[in-house]
Each structure stands twice: as C-alpha cells, then as structure tokens.
C-alpha cells in the first residue's frame, strides 16, 4: 500500500485512541483507568502476542536465519545502551544517563504490537522469531546500564553484590517476560489446535483490547508530559533522533540478513523502540539516584508517540521501497 493508505491506517483504531487519552488529559478531563485494569490488559496483550508468536514459530520453524535474527537482536540490545550512554553523558549525570540508555536498549511491547497491526492490515506476515527476539531484547540493556553505572559511579560494591543477583533475577524473570515467553512456548507446542481454541480471545477482541490499552497509555503519557518541559529540548531531540538512528541500523541489518518485508519491519521496530515498563521498574531499584521523572517520560511521552505516529509509517515505507 502507498503512503496515504498507510497514513489512513492511523485514523483507524487502535492508534487514535492513544491520542484520545492524550487529549483528554491535556483538556484536564478527570478520565481515570484503574491500574488493575492496565495490568490485566497488558498481561492479556503479552499473552496474545506471545501465543501467536509461538504458533508462527511452529510454522516457520528454527532456521539459521532465525538464529541470526536472535543474535543480532541481542547485539542491538547490548550495543544501544553503550552509544546511547555516550551521547546522554553530554548533558546528564551518570545515573540518569545510564538509566535512560538502558531504556533505549530495551523494547516496547505495545509499539511492537501496534506495528504487527499494520502488517496485518497489509496482509503481510512476520515470523514468530520476532516475538522471541522481543523477549530476548527486553533485559540485557538492564545489565549493561547497571554495569556502566557501577563502573563510572563509585559505590559500595560489596553491599550491592547480593542486590545484583536479585536484580538479574528480576530483570530476566519479570512478569512480562515470563508471560510472553511462556505463552510463546504454549503456542509453539499447541499450534493449530491451540490457535483454534484461543482465536476469539487472542485474535477477535485483540485490537479492541489494544485500543483500550492505548487509551490508557495516552492518559499516562499526558500525565507525564509535564515532566518533559523540565527534561528540556536535548532529551526531546534524543527521544526522536535515537529511534531514527536505531531504525536505520535495524533496516541495514535486516537488509544484510535478507529478512522478508514483515520481519525487517518488526526487527526495525524493536531496534527503534524504548522500554517504559520493564527497564524503569528495574532502574528504580538498581540506580535509585536516577530520576524516574526523566527516563520514563522520554520513553513513554516522546519516543512511544513519535514511533506510532511518524516512526512506524516511515520505517514501513522505506522497507517497502527496498523490497520493491
């Protein structure tokens, strides 16, 4: 489909509901979505995308391409925080630079899911390995971020040591990853049979549930926007330019790996997205000196909206040109 068609996708649910939530908050509406509901729907989304990914993976099977994709995904998750940190240090202190760098090394599941909708609308498939890649990319940057922080920011390392063990467990076994990977495995094992059982739940109402979640995301993003003003233009620019830079790398890697259009798009989205859930939760514990009022809003109120609004259509468009 051409660029206009593509843009028209953003006038159809789920995306506009994000802006509905955003606008509601800017208009000072009292709209409130209970956090227990947010938790429910986010677990649902992870369950659904993981399960579908597993079924896909059963079909595509494990090839060397799959292996290469996972390795490159891992590499991006490890390298991104390093150069992101180097850039951020120009303006931020060590703890905040390390925490924000970690956020950009990780991924945003909702951005990934929104991207998968674009492909669905265009009848383009993508491999289940991309879901595995997402799971794989969620945590490594946490370790890198903490490592940088410990390296440059002198600290009672011993007192920390025990913490570290627990931190790793929390990083790699947080609820999101467990549900995502677990559902992927269940999908992998049960495939057709499972899919036919789960279809109305993981398929039918999926986009509606995503719309509801994006409404919620819009509300939260709106509440965090204020913090951006304090953050200043440097961080606004960073929140837009780094995703573009990472997307370029992602497109390049996809090209070299010869990924098909769907996989190339999803891989690029993974590289370009930043985490506002898993990483912040870990950073709050691992780098308490860092200010959540900085690293959450940049990922949630700048990078996320930029991606679903402008980034996704752009990445899609470029990749389509390449594959013509």
């Amino acid at each position, binding site marked *: 489909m051409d660029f206009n068609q593509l843009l028209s996708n953003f006038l159809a649910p789920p995306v506009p509901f994000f802006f509905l939530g955003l606008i509601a908050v800017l208009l000072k509406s009292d709209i409130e979505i209970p956090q227990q509901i*947010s938790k429910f729907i986010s677990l649902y989304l992870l369950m659904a995308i993981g399960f579908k990914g597993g079924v896909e993976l059963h079909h595509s099977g494990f090839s060397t391409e799959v292996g290469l994709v996972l390795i490159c995904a891992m590499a991006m998750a490890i390298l991104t925080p390093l150069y992101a940190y180097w850039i951020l240090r120009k303006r931020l202190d060590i703890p905040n630079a390390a925490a924000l760098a970690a956020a950009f090394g990780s991924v945003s599941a909702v951005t990934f899911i929104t991207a998968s909708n674009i492909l669905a609308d265009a009848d383009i498939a993508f491999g289940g390995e991309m879901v595995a890649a997402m799971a794989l990319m969620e945590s490594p940057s946490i370790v890198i971020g903490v490592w940088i922080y410990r390296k440059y920011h002198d600290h009672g390392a011993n007192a920390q040591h025990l913490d570290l063990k627990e931190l790793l467990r929390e990083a790699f076994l947080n609820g999101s990853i467990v549900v995502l990977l677990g559902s992927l495995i269940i999908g992998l094992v049960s495939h057709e049979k499972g899919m036919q059982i789960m279809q109305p739940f993981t398929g039918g109402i999926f986009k509606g549930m995503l719309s509801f979640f994006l409404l919620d995301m819009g509300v*939260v993003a709106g509440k965090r926007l204020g913090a951006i003003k304090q953050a200043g233009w440097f961080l606004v620019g960073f929140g837009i330019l780094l995703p573009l830079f990472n997307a370029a790398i992602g497109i390049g890697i996809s090209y070299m790996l010869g990924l098909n259009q769907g996989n190339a798009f999803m891989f690029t989205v993974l590289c370009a997205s930043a985490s*506002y*859930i898993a990483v912040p939760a870990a950073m709050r514990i691992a780098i308490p000196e860092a*200010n*959540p*009022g900085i690293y*959450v809003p940049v990922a949630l109120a700048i990078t996320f909206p930029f991606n679903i609004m402008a980034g996704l259509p752009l990445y899609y468009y470029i990749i389509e040109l390449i594959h013509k």
Partner: protein
Amino acid sequence: MQNDIKRIEIITDYAFLSRLVKVIDGTGVSGYTILKDVAGKGLRGNKDGHGIAGGFKNCYIMVCCDEKEAKKVVEAVKPLITKYGGICIVSDAHWVIHN
C-alpha cells in the same frame, strides 16, 4: 488492660516492598500490615499510582511492636529508606487486643 507499643509506619516505592518485608521478617516481629495501592508525593516526585510505566506507586507498611523491637526494625529498614527514599515514622499507641 493496655500496654504501650510503638507504631512504625514506612512508606516507600512499591518496587522495594519485597525487600522491606524480608528485612522486617528478619527482625522477628510478630506481624505487620501492608497496603499495596498507595499514591503520594515526596522528594522523588509525584506517585500518581498509574499501572503502566513501571508503576509510579508506593507501598505502606505498619508494624506494631514494643520499643526494643521497634529499634531493631528501624535499624533494619534505615539503609533501604536512606538509599531508596520514602519515610519511616514512629508514634506511640497501646495494645488493646492482640490475638
């Protein structure tokens, strides 16, 4: 009928609840009460209690115990609070019933 006790209240980021509980269990107090959906504001900014985005929310722990245990609990939680933020306050109260 009444004997004096200390009433310790700790409020900090929800992320540290499990750690707090562990150290408090370590002091051997007879019990404690926990609230998990706590909003608020402090030096570390606004906790509006939103579900997404790594939960900007707090936890609340209340411990009733005698003065000796109270000292233990305070010493135990001090490093966590000083490192991670939040508050710990102590007030006087009386057991009326404890069973």
